[in-house]
């Protein structure tokens, strides 16, 4: 709920993840995890206020209230994006554009699997 909402707010401004993170000093991997709801929203009020302002919300507006409401609801929720291995397997990539143009080796694929699992861990 919170993650989708903050992505929607960013999308309304057509502000890409890269630009948003560069402008406000966020780590793009972490930011992506918040938006994909792999990470629970911060509980700290000051951080939330800062984020709300970065997303262009005006204090007291409907979206401002919704932002804090969603943050409160999701703060204690266990993220449901941590998939079991079987479920993860169904999402694995098929074609990779390696810089060398070669098909990945089995060792490469094992490394890739570890990286992909990392994107789903808080």
């Amino acid at each position, binding site marked *: 709920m919170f993650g989708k909402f903050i992505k929607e707010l960013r*999308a309304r401004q*057509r502000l*890409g*993840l*890269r630009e948003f*993170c*560069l402008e406000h000093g966020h780590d*793009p*991997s972490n930011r*992506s995890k918040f*938006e*994909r709801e792999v990470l629970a929203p911060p509980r700290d009020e000051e951080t939330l206020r800062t984020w709300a302002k970065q997303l262009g919300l005006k204090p007291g507006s409907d979206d401002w209230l919704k932002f804090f409401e969603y943050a409160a609801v999701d703060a204690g929720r266990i993220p449901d994006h941590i998939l079991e*291995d*079987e479920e*993860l*397997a*169904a*999402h*694995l*990539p*098929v*074609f*990779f*554009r*390696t*810089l*060398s*143009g*070669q*098909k*990945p080796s*089995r060792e*490469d*694929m*094992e*490394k*890739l*699997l570890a*990286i*992909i699992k*990392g*994107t789903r861990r808080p």
Partner: protein
Amino acid sequence: MNDPRKFKAPYNPKARIWQEADRLRAAHPAGRELPVKVLDLAEFDLHLYLVPVDGLREQLDIDALLMGDLKSVLVDKRAFMSPRLEYRMRFSVAHEIGHLVLHRDIYGGLQHATAKEWFDYISAIPEVEYGWVEWQAYEFAGRLLVPPDALRETFQAAIQSAQAAGYADWLAADEAALDYIATRIAPKFGVSAEVIAKRSRAISATRKSAQNGLSYSTSGPMRSTEPRPMRFDAWRSRDRLESTPRLRTPGTKPCFPICSRLRVTRSESTSV
């Protein structure tokens, strides 16, 4: 699960790939700007998650890849955030959009139950078929980022500007002139000079084909000095080339784009 050793790349001739790229660009405001706002197109129009991760490039030699759920594209975090690698990342994301548009059905049909099954499947896909699929996405990316009309217009303006500065003789010369012009206009498209040079040759070759093989020549470096490209019908019939020699250009050996794909990828990686 079907037998990966029998996997065949889908038939996507260049004309169709170009049509799909043109259609996507025209359908969204992000595609109608120059440079094409390809990251916005991915995030806001195609609703893909861009997921920056550490080590994709360092450990695996990969800039970006489309996940099998068709909802997210993993991108190398360093390349994603680096101004120096911006063009390269734009091209890589465009390439993944190419997979999404052209190969959606393949992804849909390849759901793996376990990671081991995934390892085994990918490992068994024939190298040549893998290369064809990658080539299609590569061609899509180039066309998406470099609209042909804008390229012609920009190219001609750059030539005129150089001619006005007294470089007329040199411009008519050779590939060095093409490289020079490509380098000058590449920032307008947000791609490397090498991509511009390739798209210029592609347009030139297409116009040459449209004139039924008559010699096509411009007064400047848009003139193609490349060997004649493989015909689309040869692409479609590549598996039958040995048995249907009439599909070859007379006097030439069959040409498999997998080879050029590999060369393209290597040189691309060093040029951006």
